[in-house]
């Protein structure tokens, strides 16, 4: 029998201190009933013989000393079922779409256990996103966690939506199920996502969790966990390939800092709690493949870098956990190029495992190395041109300069609904490389040049 307590001693920010007599478990779920009958949920943060500290997800507004507190005797569980696809849920997992409550096939702990590194499988299946800068230069593979580092005002949402729409694994008819978790985004942004999901029919194979900007910040701490618990169920019990989009991690970390401050914890860098690395790892590491399981979880978290500063603790710690990053560039965005992906600063650590013969094409690695090198050289020359003018450049340098411009205009730039196959992307790359003198293609094997270079191809045919 669960006892109800009306012994709230203190309320500070999102925390409620309750005096009690029965032992209460750490991280146990708590229900608080306000005098007007409405209820709020919370979680035990600290428990001792007489006092329990409860963190309230929906915010403490309206709670008074006479509110009743009930400890539910279990940690937070997420009801999951295969029928969840197509549903829209709140940041705490309640239906928002007017549909019936989820009839659970299972109820899972949302904290989620770590995958045994020994049981993991190596991620190596190429995911075609249809975006050249990702497929060609920073390849995403199944089971990877690849965040988009963006800034305010940049079209990261469009990029994420495009990935969600177009992502597919070549040679398999498998479509991705999408788990979308919004944390602290505006209702306008949320609508933008929802409209797009509805318009393209993607909603049918998506589960959406919405915690909006005016929802309690504390709820943001459980939203991604609910989403990932759902994803794990879909992937490892229902054998689906799941793409998880989390947006915006920055809001999540702000909530983490808020809670830390309310608990009067000793802060680490910039006021963020010292355990932020572990906390983020507990989210990001819930991606991957497991030996002998058909499904997989691929994560694309979005985070906006405060002040475009990549060394800020949030992108910095994220970069140490995720397998690379896609960096959005303000410079390209200003130049009117979509998607404004800065290939030089982006990186996919698992690219090597997912490309080449048997995955994409034998020339992929060499081609992307050469494109990187050529683009970098061309960009460097832009600085020089600003000082000495284009006229004083050598013929060779001018070619590199033009190459960099064309690379941005034709390879980076594409339409929001343009779904390029990997062949198209690679051919486009070769086409661009043919602008450069052939002896400058030092990173590509002779044989590959003869096989794929447009000049040779023409001669061959």
């Amino acid at each position, binding site marked *: 029998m669960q006892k109800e307590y009306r012994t709230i001693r203190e309320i500070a920010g999102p925390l409620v201190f309750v005096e009690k007599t029965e032992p209460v478990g750490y991280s146990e779920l708590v229900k608080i009933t306000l005098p007007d009958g409405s209820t709020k949920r919370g979680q035990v943060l600290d428990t001792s*013989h007489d006092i329990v500290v409860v963190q309230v997800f929906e915010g403490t507004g309206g709670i008074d000393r006479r509110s009743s507190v009930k400890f539910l005797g279990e940690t937070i569980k997420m009801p999951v079922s295969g029928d969840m696809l197509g549903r829209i849920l709140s940041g705490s997992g309640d239906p928002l779409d007017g549909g019936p409550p989820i009839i659970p096939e299972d109820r899972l702990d949302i904290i989620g256990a770590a995958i*045994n590194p020994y049981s993991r499988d190596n991620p190596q299946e190429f995911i075609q996103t249809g975006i050249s800068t990702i497929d060609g230069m920073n390849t995403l593979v199944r089971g990877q966690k690849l965040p988009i580092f963006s800034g305010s005002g940049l079209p990261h949402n469009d990029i994420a939506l495009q990935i969600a729409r177009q992502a597919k694994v070549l040679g398999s008819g498998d479509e991705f199920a999408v788990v979308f978790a919004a944390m602290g985004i505006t209702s306008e942004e949320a609508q933008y996502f929802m409209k797009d999901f509805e318009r393209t029919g993607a909603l049918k194979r998506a589960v959406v969790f919405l915690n909006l900007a005016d929802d309690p910040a504390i709820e943001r701490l459980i939203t991604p966990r609910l989403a990932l618990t759902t994803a794990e169920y879909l992937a490892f019990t229902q054998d689906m390939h799941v793409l998880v989009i989390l947006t915006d991690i920055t809001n999540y970390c702000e909530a983490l800092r808020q809670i830390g401050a309310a608990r009067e914890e000793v802060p680490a860098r910039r006021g963020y*709690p010292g*355990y932020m690395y572990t906390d983020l790892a507990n989210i990001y*590491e819930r991606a991957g493949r497991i030996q002998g399981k058909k499904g997989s979880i691929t994560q694309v978290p979005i985070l906006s870098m405060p002040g475009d500063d990549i060394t800020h603790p949030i992108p*910095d710690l994220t970069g140490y956990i995720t397998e690379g990053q896609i960096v959005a560039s303000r410079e390209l965005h200003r130049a009117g190029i979509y998607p404004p992906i800065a290939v030089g600063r982006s990186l996919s650590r*698992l690219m090597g495992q997912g490309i080449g013969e048997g995955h994409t094409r034998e020339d992929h690695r060499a081609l992307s190395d050469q494109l990187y090198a050529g683009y970098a050289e061309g960009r460097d020359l832009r600085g020089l041109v600003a000082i000495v003018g284009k006229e004083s450049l050598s013929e060779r340098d001018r070619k590199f300069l033009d190459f960099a411009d064309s690379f941005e205009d034709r390879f980076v730039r594409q339409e929001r609904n343009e779904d390029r196959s990997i062949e198209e992307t690679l051919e486009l790359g070769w086409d661009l490389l043919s602008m450069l003198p052939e002896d400058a293609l030092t990173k590509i094997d002779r044989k590959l040049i003869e096989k794929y270079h447009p000049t040779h191809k023409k001669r061959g045919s």
Partner: protein
Amino acid sequence: MEMKKGQISRISGPVVVAEGISPRMNDVVLIGKERLVGEVIKLVGDKTIVQVYEDTSGLKPGEELLDTGAPLQAELGPGLLSSIYDGVQRPLPKLSEAMGDFITRGASVPGLDRERTWKFTPEKKKGDKVSQGDILGEAPEGNITHRILVPPGVSGTISSISEGEFTIEETICVLEDGTKLPMMHKWPVRVPRPFSEKLLPDIPLITGQRILDSLFPLAKGGTAAIPGGFGTGKTVTSQQLSKWSDAQIVIYVGCGERGNEMTEVLTTFPKLEDPKSGQPLMGRTVLIANTSNMPVAAREASVYTGITIAEYYRDMGYDVALMADSTSRWAEAMREISSRLEEMPGEEGYPAYLASKLSEFYERCGRVKTMSDAYGSISAIGAVSPSGGDFSEPVTQNTLRIVKVFWALDSKLRERRHFPAINWLTSYSLYTGHLDDWYRKNVSEDWSRLRQWAMEVLQKESELQEIVQLVGSDALPQEQRLTLEIARMIREFFLQQSAYHPVDTYSPLKRQFAYLDAIRTFANLAQKALSLDISLEDITELPSKAELGKMKFEDDIDTGIPAVVEKMHKQFEKLGV
């Protein structure tokens, strides 16, 4: 042994407060019904503060708690090699058998296999007096001979000792006072194992990697740091070290790293071969994997588990190489636990004792004379992941104060596909002085002068590069252009080394010397030629130069180098030198 019972009085994250027991600091306690493992980290009044190695959700005040009366210990004995452990020495394959693909709580799996038998051959006999660290006998394990030692703190006269197949718990030796000795013993991980004397590290750890052995050598028993985490080829470098270094035992501690990356290590290492013996590399390797989302307290312990196993093999008289990847994650684990304890923070929230913990760890490395008068060593290579790439942060700074070697992996070099991507200008080794004697005796009298020469050329090149960037290389005088050319030869012929080419992947010291010496010979002859007004173009186009560059991929390189040098002399003679 009867374990004392106590009660939980408070739970906050991984920190649990208990009453009713009076354990010693660092004793292990078992918490709650699930017997979660924890360690005593603080005693206040009659309260005991415990750090728990597993998730504490659902624990309640009032639940039982057992004091084991012993600190966190590693199990030491045959069976360690080719194991894959988590941070508190639980075998991961066994864990996945016991609880499936996810690591849940409360599983207790012993570190060493209790069923497996090992063939024990005694070296001592009845009536022999033995004391701690003495070798009782041997059991073959993996690629090595496992020497069974008298555990620290034990001594006496042997009353019986038996040969045959035993499990690690069966008695192989009885002393006259009745002490029964099995092959296995336990040792508290936070306590350094005893040895008789620490020696100056004056023997190099030979890696067969030219830039490491010739320019920035690590001594056996030395310590090195590599900045990692930026995709600079840390994995390939550590694999090359595991494969080729002349340490008999390799211990790899993956501390707080990515799950998928750990999987890469766990799937590639077992496939690798020990090039010298042809046996699987795992036969001399212990892997410890505690990924970033596994419990933070176990991450903190993983480094100690690793070094304790390393010390155990050192005590048998082996040379051990330990790789800790990454020590920054380890430091963060300390920070996290410290902040849960509400300790006063030092720099950037790290505990004030960060520096002393780091130096304590590195101090457990070194070359020693063991208790049985054998020589063993632990060389440590610690990866640091400076946050925001900022080398002034506390972990990097404190590490660099302790370690003697810095291998600066450089992403710019990687982009240019220069492998190994170790920057020759920012790297350093403080062992060169200690090791010179060894190199002089074992390789060549001329070794240190040759190294000095190469470093000077590379240094000069970087100065000249600055000018070249402003005015172009054509504006330089011939002599300086020659320096650039020679530096390019050192970089491209000597420093670049392919990990995947069968010949180039390992270069013995004599060959390294001959190769670099040949480049110096070319430099000297070219210098002479210049002074005779022979044009630089004529010199650089000599076929022997290109031939020297290709030499490193040839099977007959060791006879090939002197042949090329001979040709070189002839070709210069033709030019009139």
